[in-house]
């Protein structure tokens, strides 16, 4: 075997080994994340049970009380509100873009969706503070006869809704595209209107996909940090309405990283919060992705 040949084979061997190492590393990443965060939070979990931390309302880090309940409830409020706002808009827009729109509309909308998806979280936060917070305080709150500064769950929900729109919309477009055209054409040829096709055929066929697209949007919203942190008010309480301030889980983690090393167990509690976030997001993602993968593959 000549040297040239040998060198090529060696190079191939080297590249293959590196590829496998890189692949294995990437695949074990979520496990590493989980282990790392669990290891850090185990300090607190030794002292108190997980359930008592999750369901306790008592948040006084100085005396060692780390009840995460208010933060979890705030997170739920913000996320669900965001989905309620973004869901219908995405659904109608996705139907519009896949079933009705002419090709030039798609040409305009694609860059819009891409740019919206690429805007950093902190920019959404600035926009929220400049536009949404005053809007909530001056226009939305008076509708309900209330007075607020505008830094509320409602503002967080609106900003989050805008952030998850491109994300949900992209998946919904994929889902609708995966439905065979013959199905809709057959129904159209029987004299149905476009909307009837959408209502009776498309929605029924795409239902699992729609639900999982919403699930993915929900988990995306659940983990959003900086933008929400900037507009949601950050008051430790269990919110009783959308026009009250809240304090979602990611905001809690981000806001207290400075002092967490000076109070015992504080870092443990925050890492536990991150761990809970990770687990919830992975479960949501897992189920939703499973449904979507199956839909787009099979059809």
């Amino acid at each position, binding site marked *: 075997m000549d040297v040239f040949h040998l060198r090529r084979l060696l190079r191939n061997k080297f*590249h293959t080994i590196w590829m496998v190492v890189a692949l294995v590393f990437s695949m074990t990443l979520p496990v590493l994340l989980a282990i790392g965060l669990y290891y850090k939070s185990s300090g607190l979990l030794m002292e108190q049970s997980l359930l008592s931390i999750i369901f306790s309302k008592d948040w006084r880090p100085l005396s060692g009380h780390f009840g995460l309940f208010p933060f979890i409830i705030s997170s739920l409020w913000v996320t669900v509100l965001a989905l309620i706002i973004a869901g219908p808009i995405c659904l109608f827009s996705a139907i519009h873009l896949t079933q009705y729109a002419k090709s030039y509309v798609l040409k305009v909308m694609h860059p819009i969706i891409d740019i919206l998806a690429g805007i950093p979280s902190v920019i959404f*936060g600035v926009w929220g503070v400049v536009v949404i917070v005053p809007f909530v305080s001056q226009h939305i709150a008076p509708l309900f006869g209330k007075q607020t500064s505008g830094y509320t769950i409602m503002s967080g929900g609106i900003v989050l809704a805008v952030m998850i729109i491109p994300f949900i919309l992209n998946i919904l477009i994929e889902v609708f595209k995966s439905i065979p055209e013959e199905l809709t054409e057959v129904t159209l040829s029987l004299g149905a209107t476009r909307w009837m096709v959408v209502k009776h055929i498309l929605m029924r066929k795409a239902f699992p996909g729609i639900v999982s697209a919403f699930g993915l949007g929900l988990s995306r919203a659940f983990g959003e940090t900086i933008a929400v942190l900037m507009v949601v008010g950050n008051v430790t309480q269990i919110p009783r309405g959308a026009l009250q301030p809240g304090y979602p889980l990611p905001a809690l983690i981000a806001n207290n990283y400075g002092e967490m090393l000076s109070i015992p167990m504080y870092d443990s509690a925050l890492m536990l919060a*991150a761990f809970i976030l990770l687990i919830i997001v992975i479960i949501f993602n897992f189920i939703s992705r499973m449904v979507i993968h199956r839909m787009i593959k099979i059809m």
Partner: protein
Amino acid sequence: MKKSKLRNAEELFFRGVMILSSSVIGFVLVLILWSIVKRGFPALSWEMITQTPKGGFYFGKEGGIANAIVGSLYVASGATLLAMIIGIPVSLYMNVNLHKRKKLVTAIRFLLDVMWGIPSIVYGAFGFTIMIFFGMHSSLLAGILTITLFILPIMIRSIDEVLLSVPKGLMEASYSLGSTESETSYKVFLKQCISGVTTAVLLSFGRAIGDAASVLFTTGYTDHMPTSLMQPTATLPLAIFFQMSSPIAEVKERAYASALILTFIILLISIIARIISIRYQKHKIKI
């Protein structure tokens, strides 16, 4: 007859709702960009871009955010480079070496999609744990490593999506000429998709430069230009975030200007990516 009238009315109504929904999305993007430009442009100055913060910077006195701009570019470039070193081989391996193991590749893709959804604050918290574990302080290096992990799934998956479009015949042709797997990967597949891969890399770079939650824990913040990997570094998103939470009007003005700078960088990246993907489309071999 009456029934069909009702149907038409329904059709018309929902068509209106749909067009409205699509327009709302476009309108919101314009509104965001407009409000950032409107607030940021008056506060923007040459000083902002070229100087580091001076003594009274946080009370509205002179200085700029050059340190944060440079810091962000360092963090994002370092992370993108590392993610390329890990990510490109992984996606090539999935599409060339593993092309017969369809089920395994589907499983890997699935896992990557799940990882894509993990929020950046979790990566930040994880980076922080690792830092503490090794006794490191917040530094440029820690930030680069954390961001690398964060953009890795994004990069692998987007490059993978590009490689999927390579015709299978090209692989067979390359093998039949006697090339090895790695030669097929790098000299045929990567070359064939170089424009798409560049676009994917640029988009990951955009993700890296805009993320705040993961650098919050790991890079720290200083007023100096970053000079070493082991020093804490300011980043643009955090500069915006910190200035935004100041009660002083002049500092807030600067936050808007900084936001405008970041938005400009992001838009620039996405435009370059778009141009590359259109311009180099024609060099592709089509079968």
